[in-house]
């Protein structure tokens, strides 16, 4: 496949200096991204380098384009006929929107977890985890079995479900369903994990589970998380990007964003003066 020849190992990504104080190898490199739905412009000239093997949080009030940005990273907007994009997004140096690239292959490298947990209702717990592999042509049952257990362990769900892997996925609680969705995303061995408010529909205990999980996963994955919850961003992320009205206001280390932000707007938002 062509993407392999373009593909650079995460470890070898070029070090990029990002704004003040952020220096790390880059996973996603977003350059001058503009995005419209019909005639309505949602993102304005966004440039952002997302560092590898770390958690990058995207915060901002509703409608500021956080989710839109996240979904442009795995080409989910391809589904929306009215969406139009300008600019460039690369993942480890490879242009994700190049005409030579098959979007389904891009999406296999980029896992995604949604706000509303969405395990497939016609499938069992085990089938949900391995669905990405099976429907991409994987037949070896020992490998599927191994990947099933590894993914469920990584998602910290194995001990709770190991005795009922063939039970329907929707018999799980809300928090378990969300961890199942994370396991499902991990099973195809993505390089990056995108999370769109993964804990916003969960109670505090389930939220704590998911946050612990994210802290574990960042040792191996690059994670981009959209969140409404600023405490959550402060707890789990190394870097934070603040968006307002479709523009990137500020991107820096999380500590800096929450203690000494450079922009007045950022300070107003994180201190709760608006939004």
């Amino acid at each position, binding site marked *: 496949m062509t993407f392999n020849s373009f593909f650079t190992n995460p470890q070898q990504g070029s070090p990029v200096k990002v704004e003040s104080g952020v220096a790390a190898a880059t996973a996603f490199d977003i350059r001058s991204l503009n995005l419209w739905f019909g005639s309505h412009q949602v993102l304005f000239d966004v440039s952002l380098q997302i560092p590898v093997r770390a958690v990058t949080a995207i915060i901002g009030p509703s409608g500021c384009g956080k989710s839109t940005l996240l979904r442009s990273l795995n080409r989910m907007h391809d589904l929306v006929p009215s969406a139009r994009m300008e600019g460039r997004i690369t993942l480890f140096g490879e242009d994700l929107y190049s005409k030579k690239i098959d979007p389904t292959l*891009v999406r296999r490298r980029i896992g995604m977890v*949604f706000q509303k947990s*969405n395990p*497939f209702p016609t499938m069992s717990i085990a089938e949900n985890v391995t669905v990405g592999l099976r*429907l991409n042509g994987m037949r070896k049952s020992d490998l599927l079995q191994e990947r099933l257990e590894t993914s469920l362990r990584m998602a910290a769900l194995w001990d709770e479900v190991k005795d009922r892997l063939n039970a329907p996925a929707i018999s799980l609680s809300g928090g378990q369903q969300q961890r199942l969705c994370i396991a499902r995303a991990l099973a195809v061995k993505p390089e990056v994990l995108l999370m769109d408010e993964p804990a916003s529909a969960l109670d505090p205990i389930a939220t704590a589970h998911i946050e612990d999980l994210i802290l574990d996963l960042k040792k191996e994955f690059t994670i981009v998380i959209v969140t409404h919850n600023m405490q959550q961003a402060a707890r789990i992320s190394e870097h934070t990007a603040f968006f307002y009205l479709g523009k990137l206001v500020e991107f820096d280390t999380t500590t800096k964003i929450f203690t000494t932000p450079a922009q007045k707007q950022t300070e107003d938002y994180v201190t709760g003066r608006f939004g």
Partner: protein
Amino acid sequence: MTVTNHNWRKFKNAFMQTLTCVCAVLVVLPLVLVFYHLIRQGFTSLNWAFFTQLPKAVGEKGGGMANAIVGTFVLMGQAALLGVPVGVLGGVYLSEYGTSRLNWWIRFAADILNGVPSITWGVVVYGLMVVPMHGSSALAGGVVLGLMMIPLVMRTTEEVLQLVPGGYREAALALGISKWRIIVQIVLRTASKGIVTGVLLALARVAGETAPLLFTAFGNLGWAHSLKEPIAAIPLLIFNYAISPYDDWHRQAWAGALVLLLLVLFLNIGVRFLTRSKFSARGT
């Protein structure tokens, strides 16, 4: 003041509740009446011979409609072979692929076709098949019923596919699964119950069609030995017997109607049993 208000509100509530209940019963009532009448008139003529023998000539006692029962199965089987794949795939196109402009025309055409009187379908297939083939045939009967099923199945398939939450499609897409696999393994599987219901409704509807069969399958007093020959069908036999002046035939017609109703009922139960979901607890 507030107490009177409250009582008036309670009265309105009780009144409307009773009204909706009465209407719900009114919906079920015709079914009960039809069933009662059919059983009362037709049950006495039901016996082993009814299911195993050919119709007897006027005046002779006994006889059955084995050929018509088999004929109805043959016709419905052909109709399903034509109507289900075309209808389901057309519904998939409308829901998952089509552009809104083209979809509008396809839906418009399907809705018009759903409203076309069944005798018109019969005349059309008569012109397209019966005339060129120099005679009525089971094949023409199957084709006309299949054609009638297509718009019905297509529209219900489209509607149930639209009910599958977009989140499932997105989740599958984010796993890097190709579109056709998402449609087959995720979307159609999730909507399978609804599609089965739609197909059954369409089959039940064409099972009782008489007018289009008069032009195509025509009917047969004996067995049809190939699909190129005219074939008997329960509705055709009911029609012929019911307009005859003989009491004996009238009773046979009642029994035929009862068998047709039971056939649709058992078809429904059987298909639902076979396609029941692995996880019976789920809602959709």
